[in-house]
């Protein structure tokens, strides 16, 4: 199986003063992402979990080319993205699209729904006729559950759930190979979330799309993804098939995340042992040395601060960046 997308040891740095990174001295920089690698197969969903400042958003921005990378490579279907000429990069861009967290804010308030959905077509297929574009917009709207008659409406006339469907239609119309979803349901009402999650899964099956799904909500991520990657302060902590998450995940941070997801059933939830981890995320600009989770880790030892633990294979498809953790006893369920 050749990978659709390969991220190889990528580092992204930002300058503390907001200036361009290449010109600023190294003490004025911080790495929002450091040595991160991943592979994504066709039709696969990779879930990326982490709290604010974990670098998950920076990672996907680097993939779509919105932030420059300082080290490493991003390889799309075998060709290095940083090496290709602008023309083929634009062609690759057509194969990737993105869905944003805030459904209303990601739609231009001065454009009609039809114009918004048609935009990728106009950019990537300048020769398509207007009738052809109109037909495809209607078709795509129908596919995501929007009545094509709404094509001349404006975003502010829609509910949050409908706006997110418009966002999905815009991401879908160019028939991409990969859709990146940045917290696609976090801003939606509980009753709408399931609609959107189910729609994404359906579209994936139908069109054979790969998905990268970012969220801080482990229960949503686990539900939709094939594999889960856990990030903390710009490092990958653990990566494993989602079916193994509860039984086999081992990194203390992953365990802490699992335990901090409340179960909507008081008889189980109130009986659960509440082992919250102490403290809060350290500043990204001044991260702890060695393993970045050391300062909050329940099993931290002196050596953890010395060097960054390598991401090693701990089982089939299971990568782990902690040499000291034991396999967990399994999640207590009712």
């Amino acid at each position, binding site marked *: 199986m050749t990978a659709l997308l390969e991220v190889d040891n990528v580092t992204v740095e930002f300058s503390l003063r907001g200036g361009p990174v290449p010109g600023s001295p190294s003490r004025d920089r911080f790495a929002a992402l450091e040595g991160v690698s991943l592979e994504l197969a066709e039709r696969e969903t990779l879930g990326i979990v982490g709290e604010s400042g974990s670098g998950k958003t920076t990672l996907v921005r680097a993939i*779509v080319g919105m932030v420059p990378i300082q080290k490493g490579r991003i390889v799309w279907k075998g060709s290095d993205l940083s090496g290709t000429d602008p023309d083929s990069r634009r062609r690759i861009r057509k194969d990737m699209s993105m869905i944003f967290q805030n459904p209303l804010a990601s739609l231009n*308030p001065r*454009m009609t729904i039809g114009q918004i959905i048609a935009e990728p077509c106009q*950019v990537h297929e300048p020769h398509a006729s207007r009738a052809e574009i109109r037909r495809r917009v209607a078709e795509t709207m129908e596919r995501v*559950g929007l009545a094509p008659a709404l094509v001349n*409406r*404006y975003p502010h006339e829609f509910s949050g759930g409908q706006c997110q469907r418009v966002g999905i239609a815009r991401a879908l119309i160019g028939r991409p190979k990969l859709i990146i979803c940045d917290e696609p349901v976090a801003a939606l009402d509980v009753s709408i979330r399931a609609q959107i999650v189910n729609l994404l899964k359906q579209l994936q099956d139908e069109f054979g799309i790969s998905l990268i799904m970012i969220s801080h909500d482990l229960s949503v991520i686990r539900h939709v993804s094939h594999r889960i990657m856990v990030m903390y302060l710009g490092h990958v902590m653990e990566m494993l098939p989602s079916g193994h998450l509860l039984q086999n995940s081992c990194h203390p941070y992953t365990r802490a995340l699992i335990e901090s997801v409340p179960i909507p059933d008081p008889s189980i939830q109130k009986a659960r042992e509440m082992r919250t981890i102490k403290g809060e995320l350290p500043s990204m600009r001044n991260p702890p040395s060695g393993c970045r989770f050391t300062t909050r880790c329940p099993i931290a030892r002196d050596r953890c601060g010395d060097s960054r633990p390598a991401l090693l294979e701990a089982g089939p498809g299971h990568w782990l960046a902690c040499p000291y953790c034991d396999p967990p006893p399994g999640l207590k369920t009712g």
Partner: protein
Amino acid sequence: MISSRLQPESLPEPEPGRSLWQDARRRIRQNPVAMTSFLALVLIGAFAVLGPLLSDWSSEDINWNVLGNVETAGRPALGSGHYFGTDQLGRDLFVRTAHGVRVSLMVGIIGALIAIVVGTLYGTIAGYVGGRTDNIMMRTVDVIMSIPYMFVLIILLVIFGQSMILLFVGIGLVSWLDMARIVRGQTLSIKNREFVESAVVIGVPPALIILRHILPNLVGVVIVYATLLIPNMIIFESFISFLGLGIQEPNTSLGVLISEGASQMQYGVLWQLGFPLFFFIVIQFGFFFLGDGIRDALDPKDRH
């Protein structure tokens, strides 16, 4: 969503949408102050253009019968044909006021247009490109702004003689600076909105992003600021003219008329000050209230 299942094969007639502009228009129609101001400005505009046609006099004709006896013979009266009376030289003030209003409005509108075109272009480019370009462009604005332009303009007018063109150059030089700053600030905040990010991800070229995603979302601010800029420009011109350096005889403007009227105040000819001042004030208030109304209409959440 349910209705989409019921759609037949052929495309249904699209339902009309309600754009933000339509919303704003509806809201401003419900704002009595803004609508009154708008009506007043329209009437004043009509007066400036059509007023001279209603009178037998032209702005340069001197009524020799009045000359020397302006306090009594030059009074505003319907019978004499001098509806607003005459000035100290026996010229019809009705026509001269219409003329002055026309010149003043023109100065204001041209100033605002320069600000809209130059300022918006400059501000969006600086804001969108960012980085060093932004720095250089905005520092240039700061430098120009720090020049005491009124002083410089007065010196220029004194040296090169008083001309309308020089006055417009002066107005053009200063009017766009604030606009550029405001537009740049707005562009910076719009640039970071998710819909611009999504356009970048799609691969929309920068020029099109500015044109399609940034400019339309700026238009509101630009219009509001422009309506507030017009009265400022009129004040600016009036001030220069009041000093006697602006518009020259026999041409006139509200500033010139007010200046002349003020100089005659003690001779019992208050109408010479009163009529131009009335129009001046109504224009000022009209634009301020209209600008305020437009702002409320575009951004209804701001005032609650």
